[in-house]
Structures are given as C-alpha cells and as structure tokens.
C-alpha cells in the first residue's frame, strides 16, 4: 500500500508550470500540464542536474532550462537522441489537493 502525503492545493500549481516541494533530500518538482494533469519528478535533470521545475512545460514534457534536454513528465525519460531518466515521484490529486508518495520523504537507510 502506498501511503500519501499532502503537499498543497491543486490550484497552487500554475498551468504549464510547476511548484517546488523542498525536502532535506532535495527538491521535488510538481508539474501541471495544459490539460490539468499533475506529475512529480525529483528536480534534477539527468544531464547536468539542472532544475527541471524552472523549465518550459509543453505537452507532457518539460524542457530543462540549462541545456534544453526534453524530459517526459509521465516517465521521467529523456526524449530525443539523448539518454537518461529523471527520478519519478508518484503523485495524485484528491479533493483539490496534491498528494505525493510518502516514501519520497522517508529516511534513505543504507
């Protein structure tokens, strides 16, 4: 069973934009597409660690602001000739609230 944790309201995230959730393990970017779908990725481009939350959101993708890599929001996979994958965070919307998997906030025990 996935347990969930609330990070804000759906309307806090701008359409074709994103908001950040900050954690001691790094930032999580919450994206909203033009058709109101919500996705979450760790805010690090697989290329050079660029903050994906600052990129331009188009379709189901975001373009990293540092070197224009295009990342698919659904899978975190890099599109086009480049290769790589941004880490995904499970998320959902319920009663106007955005929830992410609590596992993202668990202490990573070695």
């Amino acid at each position, binding site marked *: 069973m996935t347990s969930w944790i609330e990070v804000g309201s759906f309307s806090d*995230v701008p359409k074709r*934009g994103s908001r950040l959730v900050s*954690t*001691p393990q790094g930032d999580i970017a*919450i994206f909203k597409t033009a*058709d109101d779908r919500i996705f979450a990725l760790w805010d690090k481009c697989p290329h050079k660690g660029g903050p994906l939350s600052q990129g*331009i*959101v188009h379709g189901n993708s975001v373009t990293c602001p540092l070197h224009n890599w295009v990342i698919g929001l659904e899978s975190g996979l890099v599109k086009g000739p480049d290769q790589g994958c941004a880490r995904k965070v499970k998320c959902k919307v319920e009663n106007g609230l955005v929830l992410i998997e609590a596992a993202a906030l668990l*202490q990573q025990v070695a």
Partner: protein
Amino acid sequence: MMKQKLVIIGNGMAPGRMLEHLLELAPDQYDVVIFNAEPRVNYDRIMLSPVLSGEKTFEQIVIHGDGWYIKHGITLYKGCKIKTIDRAAKTVTSETGIVESYDKLVIATGSVPFIIPVPGNNLAGVLSYRDLDDVTAMMIAAKSKGNAVVIGGGLLGLEAAAGLAEQGMKVTVIHIMPTLMERQLDPAAGHLLKKAVEERGITVLNGANTKAIIGEKKVEAVELADGTLIPADVVVMAVGIRPNTALGKDCGLEIKRGIVVDDQMHTSDPDVFALGECAEHNGMVYGLVAPLYEMAGILAKTLVAEPAAYKGSVTATKLKVTGINLYSAGDFSEAADREEIVLRDASRGIYKRLVIKENRIIGVVMYGDTGDGPWFFDKLKKAEDISEDREMLIFGQSYAGGVPLDPMAAVAALTPDAEICGCNGVCKGKITDAIAAKGLRSIDDVRAHTKASASCGSCTGLVEKLLVLSLGDGYKPNAVQPMCGCTDLGHADVRRLIVAKPLKSIPQLMQELEWKTSCGCAKCRPALNYYMIAEWPGGYVDDNQSRFINERVHANIQKDGTYSVVPRMWGGMTSAKELRAIADVADKFAIPAVKVTGGQRIDLLGVKKEDLPAVWSDLNAAGMVSGAAYAKGLRTVKTCVGSDWCRFGTQDSTGLGIRLEKFMWGSWTPAKVKLAVSGCPRNCAEATCKDIGVICVDSGFDIHFAGAAGLDIKGTEVLGHVDSEDEAVEVIAALTQLYREQGHYLERIYKWAKRVGLDSIKEKIMVDTEKRRAYFERFKCAQTFLQVDPWEERVNGKDAHEFAAMRSFPQLMAAE
C-alpha cells in the same frame, strides 16, 4: 503462416535501407529484431561532417526515429552489443545476456576505425571518426579552441579537419602520402585540394609519419618520425577503416578481408547474411554508401526469395566540405594503354581530367567545377564510345554537340536513365515519374518517395532543377525552414499571419495555423509570445509560462540553479550610494561572487531564488532597477566619458548613452540588443562591434549597426550620419522598431540585416524620413506599456508563487 524471425546485428545505414525495401516487398513475412551497439536510432552517417561543422543538428540527420520502429513492429535494442552467435542453435546472445533465436540472421556490423599502432594511441583525447559519440567528443574538445591534429588526409580526415577548424580549433593534418586523398585524386588535384585546405587555416603536412602520441594522462602532442612535436589537445585518427568481422569469425564463417558473401549476400552459412561495410563481395569491400544501398536492395529480395544478384559497384566520391568542390570516379592511374584529356584553369582553380581507354571514359577527376561529374560518370558506367565528341568532351555537357546550354537545359537534356543521386542510385526518369505520378511538390517530397538527395545531399541542385522542369511555377524553391517541429510554417510566415488574420493570442494562433502539438514546445512558445508582444502593444497579455526561466523570474539562471542579478547602471555611470547598496546586499544575502561585467555594470552571482525579491527590494530602495541582463531586449548602453572629461571627446557621449538607455529600457526585441556610444573615433566604448553603435564626431553622430562580438565577430555597418542628438535618438529607436517588427526570434541584428539587406534598412530609416518617423512613433507607443520595472512589480507580490516552495519538509520521516 507462421512468421519467420529475422535478427539483424547492427543498425547503420545499410540494414536501415534493407528494412525499407523488405517492408515494401513483404511487410508481414518477418518478425524483425535489431541489436544496435550504439544507443540510438538509425541516422545518416554521411552527414556527420555537417554536424561537426555546425551546419546540421543530430535531429536533422535521423533517418528512422523511434516512431518508425514502433509503427513497423520492429524490436530495436539500443546500446546492446551482440557477444556471440551460435549457428547450431540459431541464436545470438548479447553482452547483457539477452538471447534471441533466428530463422535468418543478418550481420551488418560495419567497420572499425584503424588505429595506428604507435605509443600513446590509447591516451584520453585520441578519437576516431565513425559515429555520433566521436562527433560529440570532438565538439566538446573544440570548445577549448586549442590545437587539433588529424592523422590521415583522406576523405574522412579532411572532413574532420574542416569541421574542427570551423569550430575554431587550430588544425594540423598529418598525411603519410605525398598528396592528399591519393586514393581518389591524382597528384595535381591533390595539390589544388591542399591549397584550398590551407586557405582555411589548416596546416597540411604531407609525407609525415607519426611516431608517437605524447601525453601524461591525456594527449598533449604528436611526435613525428623526424622528431617534430606538434601540440595537440585532441587527436583524430582517420587513417582508414577495416571490416568488422569479429562476430563472423568467432562463429566460423568464411572470412577474408571481410565476411565473404555471394551475389545473393549469403555467407558460408545459407541462413546467415552479411551486409554493408563488413561484407566482402568478389574480393571487394566497400566503404561508400551507394554500393551498400545496392547490397541492401539485393538482400531484401533474397530474403523474400525473389531472384536478384549483386554485381559489384563502381563508385564516385565527393568531399563534403562546404566551399571545396571535388569529384572523382573510376580508375585514374596512369598506364600505357590509357590516354587522358586535361583542362586546367589556374586562375579559377579548376582542374578536370578524364582518363580514356579504347575511346571510353574509365576515370574522372574534377576539382573546382564538378557540375559535369554525374554526366561523365554516366558515360563511364555505360562505357559509352566518346570518339565523336572527343574534342569538346572535357568542356562538359554544355558544349556537347557544339551548342552551349544553360544549366536548366543541360538537366532537361539528360536521358531518363542518367543517374542523379549517386548515393541511392536514383536516375532522372524515376524522379520525374514520381513527381508526375504522386504529385510531388518539394525536395522533401522527392526525398521521401525516391530517396534522391536524401543521403549526402550534394545532388539537391539537380533534383531542384528536375522539380522546376516538371512543375514550372508550381515549384517554390525557397521552401522555408519551419519554426520547429510543431508547424511547417517559418518565422516570416507566422509573423505575417499574426498581422494578416489577425491572431491575438497563442492558443488562437495554434488553432488557426494548425499547430501539430497541443501547446507548442520550448522553441516556438517563447517566439510566439514575443511576436504577440511586438505586434499588439498594450493589447496582449504576456504569457509567463511561455517565457524562458530567465525572463520569467528576471534574473539569470546559473549552472547550479542559483541566479545572478544585474541592476542597471545608466550608460555605465554609478555612484557611491549605488555601490554602497550593492555592497550591503552582497553582505546581507551572503552573495558569493560580485563581478564587473563587460557591459559596464555589476553582476551579483549565486543568489538563491527565494532571496531574489528581497535582493531586488533593497536595490530598488537605492534607486536601481532591473538591468534586463537576462532579456531578449535592451541590455547595456556602454559609453566613454566623452566631452565631459576626455581631452579628445567631441560630444557628450555619456549623456547620449544615458538618454538612449532611459528611452529604450524595457523594450523586448527578437534577440538581445547591446548599444555603445563613443565620444570620438578612437572608439573607447567599442561601438563598432555592437548591435547598434554611435561614434561621435565634430560634425555630429555616425550611427553604426549590425556588429557582433560573440559567436561571430563582425564590425558594424554604417547606417548614416546625423547632426543632432535628437536625430540620433530617433534613428536608433526607429531602427530598433524595424528590427522588432521584422526580426525572427533569436535572430540578432546583424543576422536580420544580412537576411533583409542593408539597403532595405537604410532606405526605411535614413532615406524616407516619414517612414522613420512612423517607426519611431510606434517604438515610443510600445514603450509606454513596457517601461515597468519587473523587480518592483515582484517586490510588490507579482508571481509570488515563482519564488516560494509550495511546501517544505525540514525533516525526513524515519523509515519503519
């Protein structure tokens, strides 16, 4: 019927083409599985040189994108190298442990670059030139603008050298033979080629033998046999290739130089085929694309049990270096039974040589003017008797039969079976038939349906002429480059349609102009947003989400995700009060770096995003506003101290600079705009390499524009002379407005001026004063909406969501 399984090892151009044929002949006969050692789709390897020189991007040379494999139900393993073939069990096994069984197997492993056995050949920085990874490595190395050594003066070596030189490196070519490209060119043409290569700033050392590559951890120099040391930050080995036969050898197939195949491309095992550079047919191995494509066609037929036989190929070579025209085909060595016809025109740099045996052309070498290459090659392949036109033959097709023809008539005169595209073996008749039968309208159409001009592209001119001959006025040769993958329209069309329709918002535009994506991409959206702002001052609501991050948060993103902040210093002037405020801000927010910029202002680097509004608030309080150092808009106005202080100053250059900056700040433009005003022709403000520059003289002001000092370096053009400061301001604002209305997004002023022509600009701004006035007024009107300090707006709460996390978790939860 059960589908048979076809496994292909290698995903280069030959198997790609073979699959196209196979899918056409029998789309359902095979389940296809491809193993590609390279981690990517099939691309046009011949076009790597234009990628290296920056003329093309990887996307432009992809032949089959991911979608193609999905559409045809082909399984493509990328980055997956096959380790072993078990012919008894009919399986292949990859290094990652994937096992696939096959009914038929195609080995298309291509070739491997030959690495010369000298000490140091495995140092970091020693590259070959075979795939995109090599090109990427070269492009990264080229950023240093340091020294490159290319070992090998053949086709690949020279293309690599030209590409690296284009990227700004100092390049030396080391070639062991006395002349360049000796396998394709005779010594005379080799000499002309050497001269042309050297004119590009490339050093050519013929007869030079590499003894060692020197370096501690990475390459530092190349040592020649005579002891000469050539400094090198990167060494490219392009001395040749050899067929990659390892897999075939390990599983016991017959191997000579390559994997031996018969006329149907069978290896010594009837269920295993070899294709492309790894195959050896009739004692020959091939490294050019045309024969590989011929083999691909034969193999596809063999796979569907159609009779076909490969008979070997005669090949022609072209060098793909922009500005160097070179063509060679056939056999051109000297021998007793051969005659030759030579034409030299030294002043035009033209050399043509035909080698004749028994009244038939057997070899062609052309340098400088290669237009008749395919015509000669055609005669060569057909072994045509040339004794009748022998006297005029060397002058080419235009003079054949004694009547000079224009180039269009020359193409019209070609017979239907004359070859147009050498790479893909497409003749004239096939192209004209396809144009007529399928209603083709453009080069891209012809490429899609016939493959002509789809590989190296050097026959594009001929194909265009065939389109003109077939379609007349129906062919629009200057087909535009689309803005991006979301549309077929170019920037100019989009700008025109925004005004003509009119289109007043991005969603409306995407609807009416039939955008192919739901909400554009990171390329088109910022462009469209700018066009809307420029076209509809005051009437368009800026779409923040279509702006690049720097313009969205009015600061420059840095590589670590922090930002830099640059306040305006009007005309480069500052004061103790401003400097104190900057110092206080740096202390208060622990800003790690403070730097004086090239544009006469101060950059605060390493500001955390959440601190930006507070930093701006403090700078605002000291009277400073955003310097727009992040904007496609007015950046800096650099000045010298002028007549206020300087003993040479002729006018108040600082005052004019400040006046211009105060009038023009806040404007958005297609790309950044940098100004400078110098108080005398000594030009201390370096105005003659700016987008717009002013040189003050005793009699007034010389207005310059279209300079560049970035990726390109270019002195400005003179727009004209005006007598008064008021006129100077009017001219500069009008020029900027003209650029705002005509420029394509991200096109700097010098590129815009080159595209539209200097005269058309001068005419509107300097000759027709009424037009100038109108542009000036439109600029002034737009400024009334744009001169709002974006920092102050955000200090007052605009876009607050940009600068604060939605939620913060200061502590992690303990795992259970």
